[in-house]
């Protein structure tokens, strides 16, 4: 009789134990997320007020990066950006704590994530730096080309930006160890293709341009139509 009873009770016990094993950590996760989220929100408010009081906006304005922050249209001001950055970091910490509290299954996830963090940080930095460099160099190219009165100045500048961004993405993905070989081959094919395509296009497409340019040089020697303004 007892055995029969055990047969019925045992599954319920196991279910209760399993339920307790899941609900406990789940509850802990929920509590951590709610309390952590609230703490992150409060800390954001506090950091924002501190930054405003410390005239952080003006300091950032002096470095010339305020406009970049405002142009994202996500942040109201550099102080807002700073406060949200702190909030995001606290959120990340809270999520990791919550996952850690979630038992063995999620603990493994956290450990894998933590070991991956250096690669993510490096790749993010590479992307940010690459994006800034590509923008700066593209603008330098555009201005130099416009002031030299080259036609297709925007195309040249756009090409510079695309090339640098492509290179940046390849480096970032390489850092994340995603599709290493495929990326390397794709890059080699693409880069080789661009060089070859450019050479062929220039050879065929710019034939008339080169001919006209040489004719112009032959008939109008250098300096004949140059301005001799002394601008200063």
């Amino acid at each position: 009789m007892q055995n029969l009873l055990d047969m019925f009770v045992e599954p319920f016990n196991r279910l209760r134990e399993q339920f307790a094993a899941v609900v406990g950590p789940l509850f802990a996760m929920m509590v951590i997320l709610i309390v952590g989220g609230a703490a992150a929100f409060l800390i954001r408010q506090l950091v924002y007020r501190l930054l405003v009081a410390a005239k952080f906006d003006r300091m950032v304005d002096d470095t010339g990066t305020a406009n970049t922050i405002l142009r994202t249209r996500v942040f109201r001001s550099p102080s807002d950006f700073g406060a949200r950055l702190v909030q995001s970091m606290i959120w990340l910490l809270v999520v990791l704590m919550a996952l850690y509290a979630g038992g063995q299954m999620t603990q493994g996830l956290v450990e894998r994530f933590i070991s991956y963090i250096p690669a993510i940080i490096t790749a993010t930095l590479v992307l940010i730096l690459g994006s800034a460099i590509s923008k700066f160099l593209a603008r330098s190219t555009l201005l130099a080309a416009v002031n030299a009165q080259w036609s297709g100045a925007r195309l040249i500048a756009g090409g510079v930006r695309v090339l640098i961004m492509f290179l940046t993405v390849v480096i970032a993905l390489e850092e994340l160890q995603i599709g290493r070989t495929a990326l390397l081959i794709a890059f080699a094919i693409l880069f080789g293709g661009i060089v070859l395509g450019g050479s062929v296009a220039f050879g065929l497409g710019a034939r008339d341009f080169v001919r006209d340019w040489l004719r112009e040089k032959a008939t109008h020697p250098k300096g004949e139509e140059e301005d001799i303004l002394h601008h200063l």
Partner: protein
Amino acid sequence: MDTFLSEDLKKSLAEIGEADIVVGIPSYNNARTIGHVVRAASAGLAQYFSNYRCVILNSDGGSKDNTRDVVLQSEHDVSSLLLVSSHKVNPIQRVSSPYVGLPGKGSAFRAVFAAACQLKAKACVVVDSDLRSIAPHWIELLAKPVLDRNMDFIAPYYQRHKYDGTITNGIIYPMTRSLFGKRIRQPIGGDFGFSGRLAQRYLEKDVWETDVARFGIDIWMTLTAAAEDFQVGQSYLGAKLHDAKDPGADLSNMFRQVVGSIFALMETYEPVWKNVQGSAAVPMFGFPFEVGVEPIAVNVERMIKAYAQGVNDLREIYGGFLSPATREELVACAAKSGDEFRFPDPLWVRVIYEFAVAHRNRAIDRGHLMQSLVPLYMGRTASFVIEMRDAGPLEVEERIDQLAAVFEQEKPYLMERWGASPQKEQSHAKPA
């Protein structure tokens, strides 16, 4: 101050002791022309300042063409040039030394300022080493107002071709006038006279690692004197002809160093220029006379093309800091070509003021900002050339005055836009 002078120069100055007048000549590979400048300076000092203790100081940037030898060896006895032998002339000391610091005219001038202070000079004159039109009376006209009329700074006043000095006529002169209320016609002339007191003040500034050390020195000297209430005047020197070699031949660099310097000085002297209204003439010395000027060729079509391309290709860049109304007008101007093309004064003034505000706010990299002004300047210059094609010198001068008046009228617009951004820390805003 000691660190601004090379060891050789310190030793030479110690041997000289004291001087009343120092004539500074910056140079870099000017062997071909500097001899003439040194002779003219020597003759000027002998003729007009025979009772003064005078020093000619060549501040050289490491010339490879014997510039310094030419300075030291060119004719010392100038009495034959002057046709005067009756009066006693104090011997004129000559020193040539490499300067220390960043390569550029500004570093060369810093050595002159430091030498003038060490020698306790009452007056200083600086003249370019590539001048072909310098005459002995230039030294008198630049130094005498300082010695006899208590002036602190004397700017040159040249007769120039109507198309010559378009950055001066279109930006630097009107800006100097509207910002500081002083009508200094050639603020970046390059040949100046100034007092020992002002040389001392220049040395106190911490600008020698900036563009001032290169080719922004001229506008910096003028604006510092004007903004800090030193006594400013100008002397009529006739025509300015100089060697074809121009160290700032690249327009983008010129804009960065000269126009960029004036924009940077607007931040330094913000409390000063915000309180200035209108403008007044400054004392004029010398006797104005008509001179022939060298003809200048201008390719207007190419300039208009450069303008149109700039307005089209740089629209995103301009969108970052120019107002929508200004951008619309720029596009409308680009639609016209040939003799129809015009760049109206109010638009040009707004462009310059909006660029000044963008420079202050660091809306984009400052080098890029200055580069993006070049096509618009081309358009403005083309418009000026078309308008003034048949005009005489007087008419051209009136036209430039008219533009300067618009700069003054539109100053409230500048202040309004400037005030919309946070204020910067001020430095060097008060005289010592």
